[in-house]
């Protein structure tokens, strides 16, 4: 049975402890806003819903922040907040019965290149990889978003997805392999 003291919400803390918690949360918010927003955006595919999802994720994180800090044992809290966003995004799809829109407007590759043909070729490649990514099984797609958009390592992704490190490593390997094979199948002769 859990200790009731472990379930204290921010509002129930003494003022000094609440102030310290709020300062820590503000730092946490600033440190992870871009990651949560990026994850939300690549899950839902538009800025409007990504903003809603990000806001909800941080509101939920705030509610449980004190407990999460105590239970993290010094480990980074990024997987925890991404897991919150992950669960919210899953509910979002369940409620709306829809798939994400492919967020291609941000797939603007190789901005430093000025050669028109190279840019066009790069854009086509990115369009293809995003299209294939969109059709991956959910867990594979989410793992790749965490790896490449957020730069999370296997251990962080494992914590965010609630899987073992080994299972996560296999998941990512298979996701990349599937993308590789499907793109090879479509490659021009």
């Amino acid at each position: 049975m859990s200790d009731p003291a472990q379930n204290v919400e921010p509002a129930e803390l003494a003022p000094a402890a609440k102030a310290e918690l709020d300062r820590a949360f503000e730092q946490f918010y600033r440190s992870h806003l871009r990651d949560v927003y990026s994850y939300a955006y690549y899950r839902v595919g538009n800025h409007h819903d990504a903003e809603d999802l990000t806001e909800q994720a941080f509101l939920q994180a705030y509610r449980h922040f004190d407990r999460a800090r105590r239970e993290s044992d010094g480990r980074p809290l990024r997987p925890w907040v991404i897991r919150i966003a992950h669960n919210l995004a899953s509910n979002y799809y369940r409620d709306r019965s829809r798939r994400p829109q492919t967020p291609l407007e941000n797939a603007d590759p190789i901005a430093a290149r000025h050669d028109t043909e190279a840019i066009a070729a790069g854009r086509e490649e990115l369009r293809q990889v995003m299209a294939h990514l969109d059709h991956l099984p959910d867990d594979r797609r989410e793992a790749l978003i965490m790896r490449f958009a957020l730069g999370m390592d296997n251990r962080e992704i494992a914590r965010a997805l609630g899987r073992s490190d080994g299972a996560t490593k296999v998941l990512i390997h298979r996701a990349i392999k599937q993308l590789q094979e499907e793109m090879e199948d479509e490659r021009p002769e």
Partner: protein
Amino acid sequence: MRDPSETLSGSTWDVEQLLGDALRPIEPPERLSARFEDTMAAITQAAAEELSDWAEELSESELSALRDPRNWVRPVVAVGAGGAATGALVLLELRRRSRQKSRSGLRSLAGGLRARL
């Protein structure tokens, strides 16, 4: 960096490179932080108003009833929704009434509430 035209012309797809290019971090709009702060403030304010209204509505008999811990559910729930500041509002209101009525019983009630919250 690999030239994308080389990839299209025949070499194997470098999927990891492509994913790195395609899935770049997205900068959140500046308005998002302001919106989040507004939401947090609104939640705190709503809870504060709820508690303030409730405290104003209290009759003497209800204040007496608050000595019974079984009647502490409402303030505890309201404070849970808001913040420590809202909890302080309850105590301030109780203390204000305590000063007005000079009833020592309320002081111990506020102390009990503080310990409870």
